[in-house]
């Protein structure tokens, strides 16, 4: 059977991105033909400003060179625009007379600069700012002429003006409104921007309405509605763009302000899809690149007939690509009635930040001068994070939250190229910038895949996102508001958790089927998550799937770099007897353990154990009374304790005994991530309880309960949940808190980011205020523990899962 034919009209970013997605999903499905009106391969249109400013060359901004088209078997026709779509016979025709038939047609004709219809607009020297030809014409003009007028003080106009100024022209920006970039900025930020540009030598005519372009053949000046005039040898119109829909309209495809598409990017003709600046989706036409890429992904899934994605509109953010000027805006940044506004303004150093807030959630942000935290604020907007816990310091930025891992290093733009960004994988800023530029990367996922930056512990994710944002400007494709769980699905973690609960999905195949998983058996990222969600929701019913567990949890030990395992027996509360230690010593000798070490959680770690020795070693440990220490688990690790009042002259309560009770209550429980506890006998806090997931600090009158601490990648001190008076209450609150975390956090969320995301108030309300709810949570926790507190070591020492630990013996 011959391949189906896919024809793309428009060789720009949105169209080619769609093809890339199609090729990724179904490389052999289509015979592809591309028609472009420009004589170039696909290039990064948003980088035209740096080209004009002389900071980049055309070659730098080519995204897919001719070789790419050849390698993917794509027939490319450049410089020959399509002039006719024959929908009845399903074919297109170019100005040069080439015809091509299609089974599916993708229209990505982009937009045209809007030229104000005033007398003289057709004179020589009047340009738009849209493509390489416009840039060439501007560069040419700058060699022969002096005076330039840019009409339009928006993003594009200012970038054009800056570029012309860099090429030695005397530039005046004409703007209709009383402040610049009114769609992206508020007045204070815009005034600071204007001042800064004026200092660089740019001139402005505000509230000026263009009436006529003066001159003979070539432009000589611009006349305004108040009668005033200004000289000009070059006029650039950058007042906006209009979707380029003439071709679609002439073919009778329904258009309004743009080509109208549904959530699957399909036009009113079912064989024809459309993406990019030419489309109108839910009444909105987009002019920034990030939404176009989201559209491209959705269109691709429908073109390859997987038919899953839906485009539901985009939230956009903006960054001006004028070197040395940092501004950023996102969301709904003009306050409406009932909104609250946080403002930080320091004219002396040129910093302005404004956040618009409703119900303790950030709705919009405008920043000037210091835009470092733009990506963070944008994330808070997209995820609807409750900011009450850090509202008082939010304007000072994310690093003020105590990002001990990086601190001031987060000033990305100021970093040198050899500054190490990702400490886990040794990736420097220069490596990332280089990969973005040479490979044409736009997303965090792509950068992770190519450079490994932020692909391990993830603590530098914010830094990497900032580098992407500052390198590709507005092209940066921030993660969509609803983050898909992994590449196997478009559903978020929350969608999956809810579906498992509401639809009583009790095995993994049901989840795959019900939620239309895109891959046959998921991947190494989603399967462990699903296994956990099912286990947490249906204790006693769901059968744990060993093959969906990461090896550490399948082998019940931590895999080491040489493929051996480590063994940590549980010592409740860190207490032990000479007999315990002797048993551990005997096991270590018997199995030639090469190294032993006391862990940070007050346990003993035996390193370098061969996998096939594990069951026999566990058998000895089990007989000596030990159970698994779960040092490998997404679950309870250890309860660390101090000496307590039995011995310590400062101790106020029996902290060791409480630690033992807590560990006896909670060991064996599977959780979204590892979980550490500690009990300190007095506020001197020798057990370091205030950097644990759940920490107890004993005081004379009872117990302080602390939650959401972390001593790892990013040190976070706990939040005080509440104070209680009895040990029984400590146990109930701890179990209820763990159960809330088990039921609602995303897999691989530690409690620290989870508490930050849902807000301390929410946790307090569920655990402290709602007594009945707390008791129910605790009951559910205790119920699930009935199935979880079965020692996996003992089972395996007695022969369970033996295939996991034995190699295959070959007969004969």
């Amino acid at each position, binding site marked *: 059977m011959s391949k189906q034919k896919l024809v793309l009209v428009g060789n720009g970013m949105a169209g080619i991105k769609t093809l890339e997605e199609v090729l990724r999903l179904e490389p052999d499905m289509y015979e592809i033909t591309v028609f472009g009106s420009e004589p170039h391969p696909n290039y990064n249109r948003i980088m035209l400003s740096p080209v004009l400013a002389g900071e980049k060359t055309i070659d730098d901004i080519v995204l897919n060179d001719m070789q790419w088209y050849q390698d993917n078997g794509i027939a490319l026709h450049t410089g020959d625009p399509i002039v006719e779509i024959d929908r009845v016979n399903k074919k297109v025709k170019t100005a040069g007379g080439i015809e091509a038939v299609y089974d599916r047609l993708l229209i990505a004709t982009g937009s045209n600069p809007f030229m104000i219809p005033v007398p003289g607009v057709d004179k020589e020297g009047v340009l738009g700012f849209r493509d390489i030809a416009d840039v060439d014409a501007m560069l040419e003009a700058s060699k022969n002429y002096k005076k330039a007028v840019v009409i339009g003080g928006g993003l594009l106009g200012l970038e054009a003006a800056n570029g012309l100024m860099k090429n030695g022209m005397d530039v005046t920006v004409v703007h209709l409104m009383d402040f610049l970039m009114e769609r992206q900025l508020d007045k204070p930020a815009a005034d600071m921007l204007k001042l800064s540009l004026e200092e660089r030598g740019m001139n402005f005519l505000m509230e000026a309405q263009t009436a006529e372009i003066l001159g003979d053949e070539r432009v000589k000046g611009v006349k305004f509605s108040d009668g005033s005039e200004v000289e000009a040898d070059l006029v650039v119109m950058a007042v906006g763009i209009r979707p380029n829909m003439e071709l679609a309209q002439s073919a009778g495809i329904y258009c309004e302000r743009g080509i109208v598409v549904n959530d699957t990017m399909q036009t009113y003709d079912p064989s024809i899809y459309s993406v990019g600046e030419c489309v109108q989706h839910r009444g909105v036409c987009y002019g920034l690149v990030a939404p176009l890429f989201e559209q491209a992904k959705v269109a691709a899934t429908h073109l390859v007939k997987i038919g899953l994605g839906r485009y539901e509109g985009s939230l956009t953010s903006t960054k001006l690509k004028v070197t040395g000027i940092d501004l950023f805006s996102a969301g709904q940044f003009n306050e409406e009635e009932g909104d609250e506004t946080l403002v930080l303004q320091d004219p002396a150093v040129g910093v302005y930040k404004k956040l618009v807030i409703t119900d303790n959630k950030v709705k919009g942000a405008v920043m000037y001068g210091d835009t470092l935290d733009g990506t963070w604020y944008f994330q808070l907007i997209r995820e609807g994070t409750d900011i009450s816990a850090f509202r008082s310091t939010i304007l000072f930025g994310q690093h003020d939250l105590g990002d001990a891992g990086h601190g001031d290093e987060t000033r990305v733009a100021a970093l040198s190229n050899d500054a190490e960004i990702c400490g886990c994988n040794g990736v420097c800023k220069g490596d990332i910038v280089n990969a973005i530029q040479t490979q044409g990367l736009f997303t965090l996922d792509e950068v992770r895949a190519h450079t490994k930056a932020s692909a391990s512990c993830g603590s530098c994710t914010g830094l990497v996102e900032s580098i992407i944002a500052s390198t590709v400007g507005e092209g940066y494709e921030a993660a969509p508001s609803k983050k898909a769980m992994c590449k196997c699905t478009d559903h978020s973690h929350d969608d999956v958790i809810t579906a498992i609960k509401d639809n009583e999905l009790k095995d993994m195949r049901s989840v795959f089927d019900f939620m239309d998983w895109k891959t046959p*058996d998921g991947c190494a990222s989603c399967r462990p998550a699903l296994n956990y969600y099912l286990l947490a929701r249906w204790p006693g019913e769901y059968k744990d799937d*060993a*093959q969906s567990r990461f090896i550490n949890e399948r082998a019940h030990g931590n895999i080491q770099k040489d493929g051996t395992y480590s063994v940590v027996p549980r010592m409740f509360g860190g207490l032990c007897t000479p007999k315990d230690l002797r048993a551990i010593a005997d096991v270590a000798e018997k199995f030639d353990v090469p190294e032993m070490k006391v862990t940070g959680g007050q346990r003993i770690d035996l390193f370098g154990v061969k996998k096939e020795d594990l069951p026999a070693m566990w058998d000895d440990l089990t007989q000596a009374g030990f159970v698994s220490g779960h040092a490998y688990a997404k679950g309870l690790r250890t309860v660390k304790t101090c000496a307590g009042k039995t011995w310590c002259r400062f101790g106020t309560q029996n902290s060791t005994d409480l630690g033992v009770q807590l560990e006896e209550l909670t060991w064996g429980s599977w959780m979204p991530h590892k979980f550490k506890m500690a009990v300190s006998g007095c506020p001197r806090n020798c057990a370091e309880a205030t950097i644990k997931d759940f920490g107890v600090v004993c005081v004379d009158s009872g117990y302080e309960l602390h939650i959401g601490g972390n001593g790892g990648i990013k040190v976070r001190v706990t939040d005080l949940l509440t104070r209680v008076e009895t040990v029984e209450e400590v146990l109930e609150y701890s179990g209820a808190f763990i159960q809330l975390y088990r039921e609602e956090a995303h897999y691989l969320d530690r409690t620290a980011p989870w508490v930050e995301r849902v807000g301390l108030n929410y946790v307090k309300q569920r655990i402290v205020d709602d007594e009945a709810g707390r008791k129910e949570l605790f009951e559910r926790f205790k119920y699930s523990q009935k199935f979880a507190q079965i020692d996996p070591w003992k089972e395996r020492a007695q022969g369970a899962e033996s295939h996991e630990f034995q190699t295959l013996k070959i007969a004969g």
Partner: protein
Amino acid sequence: MTNWIEIAKLEDIPKLGSRVVKTDTMNIAIFRTADDNVFALKDECPHKQGPLSQGIVHDNTVTCPLHNWRISLESGEAQGPDVGCTNTYAAKVENGVVYLTLAVGEVAA
């Protein structure tokens, strides 16, 4: 001439899992996919020699447990932007029995 060695029953290898066969020089990982195909790879990730047999199997791919490289079970090649390759060996299932061929000179231990 292809020399098939009988190594196990299919049911000895868990679905979406793997078992290891030791030879005199190395370990070979035998994988079983969801649709009961079997594949054999040298049990060594081309990245940092992680034991691929311990990884999570999905589709015709295994994800290395050490640093999440994805290796094709069919070709032994690393997927996506990662570049590298581990050896493959012919394996097959007949009547519920798994067979493997080794390279010349390799002896099952």
